[in-house]
């Protein structure tokens, strides 16, 4: 473990908290300018602070770097344990960038209770960053729950007409998931230490700890039956967050009602919590259960891809369409990771970033037009490319990124996921690829109905194109989309060590649950043949 520059993580995680407290105690609620300025400066500072992680993280270094490890509740082995690997570095950067954009994009969208709004936005960021930094299960759980509260209020106070319904639905859904996750955590904890006689759970007798890296060590010893139950508890928690079919119905409601910045953060980062949890916890901690679950999670993902795309196609509300497209896109991410090979996992992680960029930008864009017309119905628009050419151009680029056009980010992620899925079971790729056709269908159909044709609606004739501030909420995301699409190597390199370690840990599964990909003895001959062929055509 590397402890160099450890202060960075603590700063990144808690700067927004300090900012939020500053706004609470020192700024008058009438002073909207100062509140916005402070929030922007804090979010900006946080983003700047997170940039060094990109450069300082060493791909050939220790698994977890920038580590801080302090005792918190020593009697039960709870620690204040921060540390990141390449995977979390990428997600932290995504979070701080989207956090800044969320603040910056809210200036005109939010007009009442501004003080509380920005405080909640910053607190939300603390929770999200904490989840990505935590390497102690209890700390992880605390941040996991901390995220929930500000989001609940963001939807419930600044949301649309059905905000209360949506907020409560969001809260209860995720709460059910996180409680089950806690039970899973405790089961693992007790199994590692003294067990729980009351329920007949034996223990390994180790010193009690919630440290995730320590629990990685004992993962291969956990009996498959116990793994199964813990996996199931984790699965419900994470699947709700992702959300996977059929746990997804909170998502469209939450998105439609949430204010724009809320949707951006929700789609961009909060949904990644589930997939982060799978890769950080389920796969390496529960290898046997993971391998047994591959089949049905693969099918659930494929259903999500196709079903989400079809439901998106039927939507009349732009925001709801984007929300359902998220279900489809997140299906790709879970499919890729449960292909359990390097390409699939890399694609899956990359697609988490891509989805944050593209769908985040789509929600921003829908929010921009909503601010102007207070209407999100596709049928209200048509031909607005004429009055808003810059907006139309941005929307087109993001649409293309979302449907996976090569040279843009979405393609790289989808390609890696699909080729990974193919390597696992070729028919996975067969079904999932059809999602790409449907994706082009619903996105371009929406684009055509909104932007092309005659400008027939009187109310749209006076629409103003994006101003400079609005443009700058989108431009960074467009630059990133092209960067990842054209030269994804820096991103893939940073996640590679994580992927390799996850693969190694999954490979510790007991042989009876062996993966089709693990080279079995009978395949060795063919393997050698292939090597020969490789040398031949090399000559």
């Amino acid at each position: 473990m590397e402890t160099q520059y450890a202060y960075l993580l603590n700063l990144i995680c808690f700067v927004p908290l300090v900012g939020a407290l500053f706004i609470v105690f020192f700024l008058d609620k009438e002073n909207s300018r100062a509140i916005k300025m402070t929030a922007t400066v804090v979010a900006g500072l946080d983003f700047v602070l997170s940039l060094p992680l990109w450069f300082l993280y060493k791909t050939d270094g220790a698994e977890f770097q920038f580590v801080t490890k302090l005792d918190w509740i020593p009697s039960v082995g709870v620690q204040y344990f921060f540390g990141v690997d390449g995977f979390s570095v990428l997600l932290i950067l995504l979070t701080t960038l989207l956090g800044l954009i969320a603040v910056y994009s809210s200036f005109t969208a939010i007009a009442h209770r501004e003080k509380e709004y920005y405080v909640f936005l910053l607190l939300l960021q603390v929770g999200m960053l904490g989840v990505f930094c935590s390497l102690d299960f209890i700390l992880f759980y605390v941040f996991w729950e901390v995220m929930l509260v500000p989001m609940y209020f963001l939807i419930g106070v600044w949301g649309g007409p059905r905000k209360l319904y949506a907020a409560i639905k969001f809260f209860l859904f995720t709460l059910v998931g996180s409680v089950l996750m806690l039970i899973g955590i405790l089961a693992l904890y007790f199994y590692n230490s003294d067990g729980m006689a009351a329920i007949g759970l034996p223990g390994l007798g180790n010193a009690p700890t919630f440290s995730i890296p320590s629990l990685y060590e004992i993962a291969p010893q956990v009996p498959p039956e116990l793994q199964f139950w813990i996996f199931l508890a984790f699965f419900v928690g994470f699947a709700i967050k992702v959300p996977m079919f059929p746990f997804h119905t909170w998502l469209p409601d939450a998105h439609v009602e949430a204010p724009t910045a809320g949707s951006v953060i929700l789609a961009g980062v909060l949904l990644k919590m589930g997939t982060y949890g799978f890769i950080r916890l389920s796969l390496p901690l529960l290898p046997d259960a993971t391998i047994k679950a591959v089949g049905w999670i693969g099918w659930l993902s494929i259903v999500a891809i196709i079903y989400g795309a079809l439901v998106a196609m039927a939507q009349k509300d732009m925001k709801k369409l984007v929300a359902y497209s998220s279900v489809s896109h997140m299906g790709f991410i879970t499919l890729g990771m449960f292909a359990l090979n390097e390409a699939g996992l890399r694609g899956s992680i990359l697609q988490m970033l891509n989805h944050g960029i593209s769908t985040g930008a789509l929600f921003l864009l829908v929010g921009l037009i909503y601010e102007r017309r207070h209407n999100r119905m596709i049928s209200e628009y048509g031909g607005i490319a004429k009055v808003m050419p810059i907006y139309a151009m941005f929307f087109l680029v993001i649409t293309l990124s979302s449907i996976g056009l090569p040279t843009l980010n979405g393609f790289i992620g989808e390609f890696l996921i699909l080729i990974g899925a193919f390597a696992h079971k070729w028919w996975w790729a067969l079904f999932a690829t059809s999602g790409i056709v449907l994706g082009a269908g619903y996105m371009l159909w929406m684009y055509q109905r909104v932007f092309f044709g005659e400008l027939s609606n009187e109310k749209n004739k006076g629409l103003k194109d994006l101003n400079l501030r609005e443009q700058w909420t989108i431009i960074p995301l467009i630059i990133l989309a092209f960067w990842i699409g054209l030269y994804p190597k820096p991103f893939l390199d940073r996640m590679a060590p994580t992927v390799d370690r996850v693969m190694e840990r999954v490979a510790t599964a007991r042989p009876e649950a062996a993966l089709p990909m693990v080279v079995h003895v009978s395949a060795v001959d063919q393997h050698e043949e292939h090597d020969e062929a490789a040398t031949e055509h090399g000559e």
Partner: protein
Amino acid sequence: MSFYDLIWLVPLFPLAGALINGLVTHQLGLKKSVANIVALIGSGLALIWGWAAVLQWYFTEDHTVSYVVKVFSWISGGDLPLLSGGTAPLEVAASYQVDPTSAVMVCFVTLVGFLIHLYSVGYMHSESDKAYSRYFSYLNLFMFAMLTLVLGSNLLVLFVGWEGVGLCSYLLIGFYYEKEWCASAGMKAFIVNRIGDFGFLLAIFFTFGWFGTLEFSELFAVLSQHHGDALVGAATIIGVLLFIGAIGKSAQIPLFVWLPDAMAGPTPVSALIHAATMVTAGVYMVARCNFFYQLSPNAMLVVAVIGGVTAIFAATIGLTQNDIKKVLAYSTVSQLGYMFLAAGVGAYIAAIFHVVTHAFFKACLFLGSGSVIHACGGEQDMRKMGGLKKYMPKTYWTFLIATIAIAGIPPLAGFVSKDAILAKAFEAGYTDLNGFGGAYYGLWILGLCGAALTAFYMFRLVFMTFDGAFRGGEEAEHHLHESPWTMTLPLQVLAFGSVIGGLLIGFPGILFHKENWNFIEGFMGPMILGAHGHGAAHAGGHAVSFGLEWALVGLSVTVAAAGILVAYRWYKTDPEFSIPNAMAERFPFAYKLLLNKYWVDELYDATIIRGTIGLARFCWEFDARVVDGVVNGTRHVTVGTSFLSGIFDLKVIDGIVNLIGTINQTASRYFRRLQVGFTQGYAMVMVFGAALLLAVFFISF
């Protein structure tokens, strides 16, 4: 450093032009002259550098192998398990290659591309500054994508170009986006192509799954090493899947429906993208991946059948269309069919040869039709044209030359390449290729019939448009004029190419015992995998006797002449068109069938499109009512339960609590009397109590 070491600059020049025009000229609203200069320099540099690189490579390097230039490492996906049981690292580079196939493509794409840029300067001059720079930005972007497509050294870089040209096609078909139907046509093109891409992507996965690489030269090496039938199944699957992609891009049955609608774009775009270059990408891809098809007789047969049937099918539709661009569009579909027929009989070189000659004469025809439409003030209906030859002689003569070329009259380019295809198809039947000789004979006959139809509908077009008297009304007649030089010069160059291009690059030496005069056969020969993996491809072949070869030439010239003659009788000598009109009345069903393009669009609309939307609506209802219904149901049950338990709590639990309280209170009201503070009273109670306890004690023992 040499030109060909920097081959990647060829696509990069137009990309730079696209970016400058899109981000600077367009955003600042600069004048048209700026957009002109930028766009022409972008495509002009691609032309110069492309030709220079190819020529330098040809004279300095071994031109029987691919010269691969790796630009940077693009996607790395770690080790992947293969279908064969081993693993291979997924490393895809952004790399370009120069080899005979890409050299041929680069030379003609840059040339035709530059000419059409030049033509567009004249054609688009009446657009606003903003639209003008947008147009040229897209056009340059297209050049980038197309050059990436033909220069890419692996399937994935090819796919980048493949999707890129699709995007530009989408943007340019929908260039007049205010018009609903233009925008719809663009979307239709994109989505139909995506269906094809589905096959293409799966083919990429299967290719990597079996061979562990996506590089063409490595695949060629692996497949040429193979012996026996081990890889035939793999080659068949990959070949058919790739061909699904080609069907979409090159508008073959059943995915051809987007191309006629694509005529909604500006006419130079139709010429460049939807005739000369992009739509031939499918043919290029099949020729590039010939190593799969060569191993798989079944995949070859699929390609040949789809191609041959499309050739005649589209030609029949072309017979009755009255929109000048629609005739040309169906003609393009039909000619693409010929190219696939060639590929399907193993004559990949003939297919590429026809791609090149077709690029010249079809671009010339489209640009000529653009010149006509331009003169007629946007009118595209041939029934409102006529007699134009005296108003626009340059357009007329170039158009006529290109028409003679496509009709297949020797020695023009179209004759040479089309006759090569028909001869190969016949040969495939004659030698019973892969045991499918009968099928190939049938396809040869279809191709021959198609040739007659082509000659007929093309001369019908010429006679209706340029001969007789003008039918568009007097006012329109005043506006008729020859186009400016920027438009006629490209026409002249292309017409020139249509005359000599065929003999120049593909001299039919076999007819004169001069096989080595056929440049393209010798040049591209090493790129074709010998059938069944043994040795190099036999370039000429002497399966068919010398006399028979000449007989075939005579036959195809005869059918072409017959087609022209009928067109002459029906549309030239009779200005009322009474014979075709009588035919239409006599066979109303056949006429309507062709006029309405076999109702294929309507069929797709009723089945696939409505089906998908219906399924989408059903899923949405299901989601709202069932999936979310369960969630809300849980909520109602929970709320209901808590309401009931609230009542229970209030009435029962609280009731019991209260009851106990009440009992206590009532009881204490009586017991209170006992406790009044008299010591004697307490003493007495104590005594009685003690006595009672003693009594109980004694009685029980």
